[in-house]
């Protein structure tokens, strides 16, 4: 199955960013409520119920759709905020809910069956059996694939499943099995899976020591950047550690995914939608990245070569990678 046109799924952390994404050509915009029900629970970010209603209306007027991410795992003994978020998002007119927890998927299927359910990358479903289970049990219409698969693996997977697939094409990368990473929790007591925050800002400190910028997460020194070096996010997975007397990035370099060059192959592989990461980024980032990928997706749909996107200036560490799409490791 070859896709004719790839759907562009774009992030929004604020109503202004949502409008920027829609204006720049997003087919769909994903966002979250201002609480722990979504994996970007950062200060000053996300939507109130009223803001979501206005955002959905704005998107509708411009031919776009809004997806609501409820992609954290409900707290034991306190599922109410997640349940209420399902009801509110569906009732406000969200096109689909993006979820990872089986309990929440079940609740949504039972209580708002007419609202589409998408399986979040946080569920880390990457094989036909797992995806088939989510489809059969909760009538999931789309799965967001983990960022660990090559293009041939995605093509093979699409031949064996009967749901839409969505893949990340730009932005931050996680190296761990998504939804299962405990590094942030280990360092700060808070994790993206339960609290919606990886390396919460309340535990991050930047200190200027001489010519070096030192980043700290909780009690851990994560990195030291010299004056001429580009900086990165203060996450443990992107920390620089000393081994064999040499400091190096043991897990992952500070870099952003950019898979624009693979759009024709991803279409050929039967992918339905392209996801841009970055709900925590500003509206300037959203406008620039969405416009660039609009051009790229349209070029791919016309069978043309994807043009250079010129996004190096906004990437983490000012570096890009094609990630697992061009995997050379096992």
């Amino acid at each position: 199955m070859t896709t004719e046109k790839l759907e562009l799924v774009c992030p929004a952390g604020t109503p202004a960013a949502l409008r920027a994404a829609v204006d720049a050509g997003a087919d769909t915009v994903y966002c979250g409520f201002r609480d722990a029900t979504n994996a970007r629970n950062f200060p000053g970010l996300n939507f109130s119920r009223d803001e979501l209603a206005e955002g959905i209306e704005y998107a509708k007027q411009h031919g776009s759709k809004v997806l609501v991410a409820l992609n954290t795992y409900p707290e034991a003994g306190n599922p109410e905020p997640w349940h209420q978020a399902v009801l509110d998002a569906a009732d406000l007119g969200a096109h689909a809910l993006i979820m990872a927890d089986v309990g929440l998927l079940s609740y949504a299927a039972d209580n708002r069956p007419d609202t589409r359910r998408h399986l979040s990358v946080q569920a880390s479903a990457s094989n036909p059996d797992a995806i088939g289970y989510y489809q059969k049990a909760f009538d999931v219409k789309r799965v967001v694939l983990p960022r660990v698969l090559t293009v041939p693996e995605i093509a093979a997977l699409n031949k064996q499943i009967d749901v839409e697939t969505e893949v990340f094409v730009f932005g931050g990368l996680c190296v761990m099995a998504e939804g299962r990473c405990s590094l942030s929790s280990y360092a700060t007591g808070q994790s993206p899976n339960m609290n919606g925050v990886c390396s919460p800002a309340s535990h991050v400190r930047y200190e200027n020591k001489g010519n070096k910028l030192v980043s700290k997460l909780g009690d851990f020194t994560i990195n030291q950047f010299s004056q001429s070096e580009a900086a990165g996010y203060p996450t443990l997975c992107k920390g620089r550690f000393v081994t064999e007397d040499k400091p190096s990035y043991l897990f992952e370099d500070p870099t952003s995914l950019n898979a624009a060059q693979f759009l024709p192959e991803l279409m050929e592989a039967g992918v339905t939608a392209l996801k841009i990461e970055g709900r925590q980024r500003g509206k300037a980032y959203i406008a620039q990245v969405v416009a660039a990928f609009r051009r790229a997706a349209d070029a791919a749909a016309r069978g043309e070569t994807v043009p250079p996107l010129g996004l190096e200036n906004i990437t983490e560490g000012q570096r890009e990678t094609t990630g697992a799409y061009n995997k050379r490791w096992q």
Partner: protein
Amino acid sequence: MSHSPKGPPAPLSPILLAGLALRPVPYVLLQPIFTKAIRQMHNRHSDVFERLIALGSPRYLIDPVDLPFSFIMDTNPAHPTLDVLAEGSDETIMDIKACVRGPLLQLIELLEGRIDGDALFFSRDLVVEGDTEAVLGLRNAVDGADINVHEDLLDLFGPLSKPIDGAAQIAGKIFNRFSRDLSLISQASTAPLQRKCDAQAASIEELEETVATLKKQLRRRREKTA
């Protein structure tokens, strides 16, 4: 001429030269302008201050590194203030939760959401210190507010806003041309130095690799003899 050595280096720009010209002016004379500006921001974008209540309405040090003074911004939602802080003032006694330092134009672009704060931080053009949560909260609050500094300030002048806008447009064109000229001068004057720096950086990298290899060999030799 950074107000603080902790900030990124000030770029050679018309702002830097204007800052030099402003040095002899007592900053108390400039204070009314900034008081009016923050009142205007409060009137037009009160949501920015409301979003910061959850973070305890922090006080920020905003340091445009190309000006000889900085600002203390108090985000009290009922009565926000923007006070000029003279060069050399003791920042530690100001009950400041976080500092944001960068060139003035980039701080304005950030305020208007025309530039991505994370990208500025990655490129080291922006330096943040103190409570990172407070900085992030401020960035997200202003980014969501659709602030336009030019329009907000023009509005202060009431019926005079139209002629002032015309004058500002002309001044803007002169500013841009002057900026380009200064950029050319800056590049020409630093080019020889840049070449030397690049060559030295390459040599240092080579030496670091050699040292790392030698250390590894030494360790293996020690392990064998142990």
